[in-house]
C-alpha cells in the first residue's frame, strides 16, 4: 500500500522512467543495427583541433557533443542507453519548461512534454537525421531553464546570438519564451528576437563556408546529401555479418529476399559458410564491384566481404569509398581500421601510421590502434600474423586484374 501510494505520488517520474526504458529497449533490441551504424559514420577525436573545427561553425557545440555521445554507440547497449538518457532528459526538461511557462501544474501538459522526445526518437530512425539535432534541443532547453525570470528580455538578447552559434537555428525556441508571461509586449519581444536571430543567420553566412539555406536548416541537423547512409535492409545485414551470424542472415533472406546487391552477396557468403554453396557460386560476389556500392553501409559490408575473400585492394577501395561517401563529410573509425589493415598488408606502413595516429585519439579504437602501431613499426612481423600474414601472401601472389 505504501509503495502504491509512493508510485501514485511520483507517477510522472515513473512514467518518465518507463519511457526511458522503452527508448532503451527500442534501440537496443529493435534497431541495434542502426545504433552501430551511426558510430560507423563518424570518427570523434579527443584533441583540441577537432573541437575547434566543430565550434567554428554555427551549431558546432551541439554537433561536437552529439558526436561525443555518438562514439559510445560503438557498443549497442551504451548507445541505446545514451539515446534513452538524451530523449528522457529532453522530455523532462520540456515538462519543467512547460510548467514554468504555464505557471500551473497540469496533467495534460505532462503528456505534451513527451511530444518533442517522441518526435525526435522517430526522426532518429532516419539515418539522415544526426544526433546534433536532439543535442541542440537539449541544450536550448537547458538554456531556457537557466534563464532568470526577471530581466528576461535582456538575457535573451545576449543569449540568442550565443545560442545560435553554439546550437544552431534550434535557438529559435528561445524566442517563444516571452509568451510565458502572456502580456501585450510578448509578441513584440518575440518578433524582435526573431529579427535578431535572422540577422545572426545572415551574418554567419558571411563568416562560414556554408550556404544560407544550410544555415537556416542547421548545418548538421540532417544530412546535406540524403540517402547515402544505407537502407534498413543494408544496415540489418551489415549488423548480422559483423556478428558472423550466418544462420540469421540466411533465415532473413528466406523470409524476404534482399533487394540490395550487397545484401545478396552477404547471403552468398553466409551460405558458403554454412556449406550450402561452393566456391564457384561464391565468386558471384566479385561481380558488379561498382553497382554494389549503393550506400556507405553497403560499401562497409562489401569491404568486410572482400577482405574475407582475400581481395585486399577491393576491400581497401570500398572502405575508402564508404568513408568518403559520408554525407556530412565525417570520417569513419570503422573504415579507418580497415584502411590500417589493408595498408599494413600492402606494405604502406607510413600510410598505416597516419591512420593509427588518428585512431589512437579515439576512445574505442585506441587499444587496437596501439597494437597495430607495433606491427607498423616492425612490418617484418606481419608475415607471422595469423590474419595479415596469409592475406599478405595472397596479395603478393595476385595477378593484376582490373575491377571497376
Amino acid at each position, binding site marked *: 500500500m505504501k509503495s502504491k501510494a509512493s508510485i501514485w505520488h511520483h507517477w510522472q517520474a515513473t512514467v518518465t522512467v518507463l519511457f526511458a526504458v522503452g527508448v532503451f529497449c527500442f534501440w537496443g533490441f529493435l534497431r541495434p543495427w542502426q545504433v552501430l551504424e551511426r558510430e560507423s559514420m563518424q570518427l570523434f577525436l579527443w584533441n583540441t*583541433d577537432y573541437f575547434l573545427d566543430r565550434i567554428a561553425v554555427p551549431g558546432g557545440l551541439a554537433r561536437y557533443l552529439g558526436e561525443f555521445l555518438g562514439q559510445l554507440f560503438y557498443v549497442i547497449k551504451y548507445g541505446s542507453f545514451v539515446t534513452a538518457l538524451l530523449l528522457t532528459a529532453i522530455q523532462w526538461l520540456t515538462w519543467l519548461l512547460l510548467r514554468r511557462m504555464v505557471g500551473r501544474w497540469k496533467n495534460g501538459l505532462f503528456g505534451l512534454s513527451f511530444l518533442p522526445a517522441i518526435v525526435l526518437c522517430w526522426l532518429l530512425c532516419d539515418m539522415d537525421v544526426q544526433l546534433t539535432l536532439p543535442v541542440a534541443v537539449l541544450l536550448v532547453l537547458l538554456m531556457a531553464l537557466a534563464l532568470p525570470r526577471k530581466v528576461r528580455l535582456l538575457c535573451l538578447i545576449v543569449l540568442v546570438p550565443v545560442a545560435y552559434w553554439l546550437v544552431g537555428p534550434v535557438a529559435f525556441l528561445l524566442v517563444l519564451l516571452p509568451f510565458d508571461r502572456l502580456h501585450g509586449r510578448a509578441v513584440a519581444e518575440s518578433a524582435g528576437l526573431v529579427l535578431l536571430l535572422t540577422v545572426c543567420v545572415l551574418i554567419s*553566412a*558571411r563568416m562560414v*563556408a*556554408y*550556404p544560407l539555406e*544550410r544555415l537556416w536548416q542547421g548545418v548538421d541537423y540532417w544530412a*546535406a*546529401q540524403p540517402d547515402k547512409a544505407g537502407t534498413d535492409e543494408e544496415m540489418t545485414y551489415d549488423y548480422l555479418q559483423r556478428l558472423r551470424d550466418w544462420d540469421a542472415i540466411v533465415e532473413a533472406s528466406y523470409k524476404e529476399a534482399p533487394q540490395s546487391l550487397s545484401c545478396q552477396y552477404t547471403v552468398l557468403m553466409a551460405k558458403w559458410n554454412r556449406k550450402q554453396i561452393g566456391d564457384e557460386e561464391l565468386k558471384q560476389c566479385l561481380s558488379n*564491384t*561498382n553497382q554494389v556500392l549503393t550506400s556507405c553501409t553497403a560499401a562497409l559490408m562489401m569491404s568486410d566481404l572482400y577482405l574475407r575473400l582475400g*581481395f*585486399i*585492394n*577491393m576491400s*581497401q*577501395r570500398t572502405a*575508402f*569509398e564508404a*568513408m*568518403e*561517401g*559520408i554525407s556530412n*563529410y565525417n*570520417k569513419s573509425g570503422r573504415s579507418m581500421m580497415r584502411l590500417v589493415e589493408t595498408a599494413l598488408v*600492402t*606494405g*604502406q606502413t*607510413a*600510410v598505416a*601510421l*597516419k591512420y593509427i*595516429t*588518428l585512431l589512437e585519439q579515439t576512445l574505442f579504437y585506441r587499444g587496437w590502434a596501439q597494437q597495430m602501431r607495433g606491427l607498423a613499426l616492425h612490418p617484418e612481423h606481419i608475415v607471422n600474423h595469423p590474419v595479415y600474414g596469409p592475406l599478405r601472401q595472397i*596479395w*603478393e601472389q*595476385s*595477378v*593484376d*586484374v*582490373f*575491377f*571497376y
Partner: protein
Amino acid sequence: MRGAIRDMVLSGLLTLLLAACTLRPVNVQQTDRLPEIFPDYIGVTIPVELAPLNFCMGDEDYTTIDVEVKGKQGGSLHANGPYADFDIDDWHQLLKANAGSQIVFSVCAEKDGHWTQFRDFTVAVSRYPLDEWGITYRRIAPSYTMYSHMGLYQRDLSNFDETALLENTQVTGHCLNCHTANRTNPDQYVYHVRGKHGATVVHRQSGDEVLKARNDSLGGSLVYPYWHPGGRYCAFSTNKTAQMFHTVKNKRIEVYDSSSDVFVYDTETHTILCDTLTMRKDWVENTPAFSPDGQWLYFITARRQVFPADYDREKYSLCRVSFDAATGRLGTQVDTLVNTRTTDKSVTWPRPSYDGHYLMYTQTNHGYFSVWHPEADLWLLDLKTGETCCMDEVNSAQAESLHNWSANSRWFLFTSRRGDGLYTRVYFSSIGNDGKATKPFLLPQQDPRGYDRSSLYSFNTPDFTSRPVSADAYESGRRLENPHRTETKTREMLH
C-alpha cells in the same frame, strides 16, 4: 591581498613548470652523423621570403630537439621543444641577412634522457628571389570515385597562413577542380565545378562569368585549362574520363580517357574553337599549354587504345602547333617534340617556363594521369637545344607531377608522394643556370609531423600566385546556386 599572493604563486609555479619543460642539452654526446630530420631540409636551397623550416627528428623516440641556426653572414636563431619552431620574424631577418649565402643548423636531440649533438648541416639561401606571395592548390583526399570535403585554398609562403577560396561545403557535394591562374596572376583565373550546380567559372578583373559546365556540341566539360598570356584565350581539353582499379601491389587506380580533345576557348566571344588538328578521330589529345609568348600551343597526343586490354599501350607524345592570337587559329603543322616511338614512354602535363627556356613535363610508363603512377618523374626539355633530361635531382621512387613555374622561372613547385606513397605534398626547387635543380624541400608547416599525421588530404594542382587571390566564397556559392549560365558556342576549323 590573498588573491594577489595566490596569483603570484601561480605565475611563479607556471614559470618554473615552463622552464622545466624547456630541456636544455646537458652531457651531450657528439656524433658525426647528420640528423635524420623530418622534413628533410638538409642541403636544400630556399628563397629569402620563405616561412621557417620547422622540423622534428625523424625518430619519434627523440622527445626534445634543440637547434641553433647561425648565418654565415651574421645572425642567429634558437629553438627548443618537441620540434624546432622558429620565430617567423626572426627567421626572416636571418634569411635577409644571409641572402646568397648559407645558414648553418646545429642540432641536438634528446632520447631516453641522453642528448646527442649531430653533425651540422647547411641550407643555402638563394640570391634569386621568389617574388610570388604564395601558392594556390586544391586539397582533396586521394580517393577513388567518391569524394568528401575538398576545397581550393591559398597559402602565404612567408608564414603558415592558409585561407580557403572555395570549399564544397559552400556548394554541398560538388567537386571543385582545375583552378588555374594566368601566369600566377590572381586577377585572371578559371576553375571548374562538377555537380548539380556545375559550371566553369572564368574570373577576370571585370568579374566572374559562369559558363555552362558542358557544351552539348562538344559532348563534354572544359577541363585542364591553360591561359594564353594575352588573357583572351584559354586552352582546355574535354575528356570522357573513367577509372579502373588494380588488384596488384603499389598501384590502386588507372585513370584513362575513352576520348579527349584539345581546343582553345575565346573568352570574349564565348566560342570554343574546334580544330581538327587537335580533335582527331582515333587519337586522344590532352593537357594543353601555351608557350610564354603565346605563339605555340603544346599538347600531348596518343593513339586511342582499347581498354582495359591495351591500357598500357596508350603512350602520349609531346607536340606543339602554332597559334595566331589575332585570328584565334591554330597552324597547319604539328611538331612532335618528344616522340613516344623513340622513348617508349608517355608524356603528360607540359609546362613551359615563362622565360621560354625550358618545358617541364612528367614522364610515365603509359597513360597521362600521373599521380597514380609511382614511376612518374619530372623531365626537362631544353627548348633551345631540344634535349631532354630526367630531373634526377628532384625525382623519387614515388609519383612526381603537377608542376608549375614561378614567374621569374627560377623556382618551380610540384607534387610528390615520396612521403608515404599516397598523400601528395607540395615540394619546391630552384633551377640554376646549368639547368640543374636543387634538392627539393617540402612546403613548410608550423608543426610538420602533426600536420602530416593528421591531414587526410592530398595537395593537387598547386601553382604560384603573385598576390593573394581575392575571392568571396559566399558570392561564389551564390553565383553557382543561381541557375543562370552563359552558353558557349563552337566554331569548326577544318584542315
